[in-house]
């Protein structure tokens, strides 16, 4: 099972000091969090993508490329990549490039984005969110699997004899997750392709997640990718820990009370009861997280939101120490002991290459303009 962190990349006032970080500080903090994730033994760092204040991560592959250069093992991912407003051609190119540079340490999570005004900035309309996600991803899927693509759709200009470069590393496209909170169509999409499904999980009652995962598993089996319990599931989680649980509650409460999304609404106690948010000791986080499995089944990836609501970097890094040293080692062991042998791990570049019968260089060489001949050793 993979464990990691996902970040929204919000610039938020620390309610205990009134201080708001600069964009520069926030960007550097996100990188520090990613490096720390590797240092404490986590598997995944995933960044959000946003194109409006108060968020900084508008350029995920720039950030992830930088992190890739400074890490060895960490898997770089997104939470989420906007499949609606981004050009699927650019996604294909950018993430294939990142895949080469990081040595295959990359996967992506597709999401639609729920901020209406962002869509028209990119020439799109939020009311077409689902059709955009369907059409754009279908093109992206082809661009990584077919060397030369002829394509015509509704939402971008047609493609004739188009080759997306670079071709995926070893001829194996990055693994893709699809994230959705409550759109059954996206669970269906993930199931159709045999891709992963990620339930954000953190701001809503567990029943939402349970229903969406059950639908995804059922449709995954329907489309013949394996049995329902072999579908590839990821979950979000949100925790704040101190050794003594009262200390955790006391320290986190002002951040909770003023947080974007749920601040000034339900009490911390109500929200921890109604959603997976856990504020307490490392043991409480272990117990709660192990409980997720009881309503979604054995799953492959657990990401935690650790750095939102204005929490200072120092606190976040302390949280990552606790997560990496006290929580995740126990969770790894417990989840592994519970997982039946026929339930797979989350795909990685290595496992996908192995499944493909080994890697092949998939470079598409240009045809020589003058002689009309391909260079020596070219694959076509």
């Amino acid at each position, binding site marked *: 099972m993979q464990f990691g962190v996902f970040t929204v990349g919000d610039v938020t006032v620390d309610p205990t000091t009134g201080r708001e970080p600069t964009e520069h500080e926030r960007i550097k903090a996100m990188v520090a969090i990613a490096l720390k994730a590797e240092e404490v033994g986590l598997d995944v760092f995933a960044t959000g993508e946003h194109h409006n204040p108060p968020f900084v991560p508008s350029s995920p592959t720039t950030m992830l490329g930088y992190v890739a250069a400074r890490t060895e093992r960490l898997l770089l991912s997104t939470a989420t990549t906007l499949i609606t407003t981004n050009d699927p051609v650019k996604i294909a190119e950018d993430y294939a490039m990142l895949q080469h540079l990081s040595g295959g340490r990359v996967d992506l999570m597709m999401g639609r984005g729920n901020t209406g005004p962002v869509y028209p900035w990119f020439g799109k309309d939020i009311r077409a969110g689902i*059709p955009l996600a369907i059409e754009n991803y279908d093109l992206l899927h082809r661009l990584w699997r077919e060397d030369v693509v002829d394509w015509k759709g509704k939402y971008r200009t047609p493609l004739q004899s188009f080759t997306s470069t670079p071709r995926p590393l070893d001829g194996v496209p990055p693994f893709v997750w699809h994230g959705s909170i409550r759109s059954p*169509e996206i669970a269906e999409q993930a199931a159709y392709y045999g891709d992963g499904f990620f339930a954000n999980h953190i701001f809503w009652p567990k029943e939402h997640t349970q229903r969406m995962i059950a639908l995804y598993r059922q449709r995954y089996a329907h489309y013949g990718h394996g049995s329902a319990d072999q579908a590839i599931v990821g979950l979000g989680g949100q925790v704040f820990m101190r050794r003594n649980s009262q200390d955790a509650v006391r320290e986190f409460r002002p951040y909770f009370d003023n947080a974007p999304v749920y601040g000034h609404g339900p009490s911390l106690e109500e929200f921890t009861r*109604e959603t997976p948010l856990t504020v307490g000791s490392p043991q409480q986080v272990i117990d709660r997280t192990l409980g997720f499995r009881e309503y979604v089944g054995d799953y492959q990836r657990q990401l935690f939101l650790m750095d939102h609501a204005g929490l200072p970097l120092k606190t976040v890094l302390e949280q990552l120490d606790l997560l990496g040293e006290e929580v995740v080692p126990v969770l790894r062991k417990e989840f592994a002991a519970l997982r039946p042998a026929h339930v797979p791990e989350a795909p990685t570049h290595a496992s996908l290459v192995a499944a493909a019968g080994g890697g092949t260089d998939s470079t598409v060489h240009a045809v020589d303009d003058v002689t009309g001949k391909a260079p020596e050793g070219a694959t076509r």
Partner: protein
Amino acid sequence: MTRRTLAVVSAGLSQPSSTRLLADQLAAAARDELVRRGSEVELRVVDLREYAHDVVNNMLTGFPPAALREVVDAVTGADGLIAVTPIFSASYNGLFKSFFDVLDAGSLVDRPVLIGATGGTARHSLALEHAVRPMFAYLRAVVVPTAVFAAPEDWSDGTADGALRGRIRRAAGELADQVERRPPASGPADPFALTTDFLQMLGRSDDTPVS
């Protein structure tokens, strides 16, 4: 015998509340009328006041807390709805509107609704027609022609058999007509139900989006 459920929503704030009193009288009249016609009727009466904080939390977080979830399911899964609000500043009160704001879009489509209101003066009575009825029209509910407004004189004139009672009976009969015209409700819609499949979605991606 057909089983029917009527949800009764009162947005009265004071206790005791004349809004709740009107809601109870409308509910009793509608129940009696359906029973007279041979149905078995279950009433579910909701005082929104008890869920006021939950309604606001729902607006802020996007999901209803468990207690409100149960109420939302009862209201959206009923055969008929009786909705009664006090008139504040020429319209429904904020609690009434907020409750209907947090329901899923489409959850009251084709639902028979009887609307009622109370106010400090009969001059507020047309608020039912210019505010409450249009809101339910937007939600594509079927609002019966008679809307019942109760002014102070309706309670104080000793008119137990008077004009108010007559309007209540007429409205209840209209609601019963609409309820009887429909098959029994099958409960609240499931927002997680898949109503399409992938190939259909792929083929449909060049349709104009539905807003």
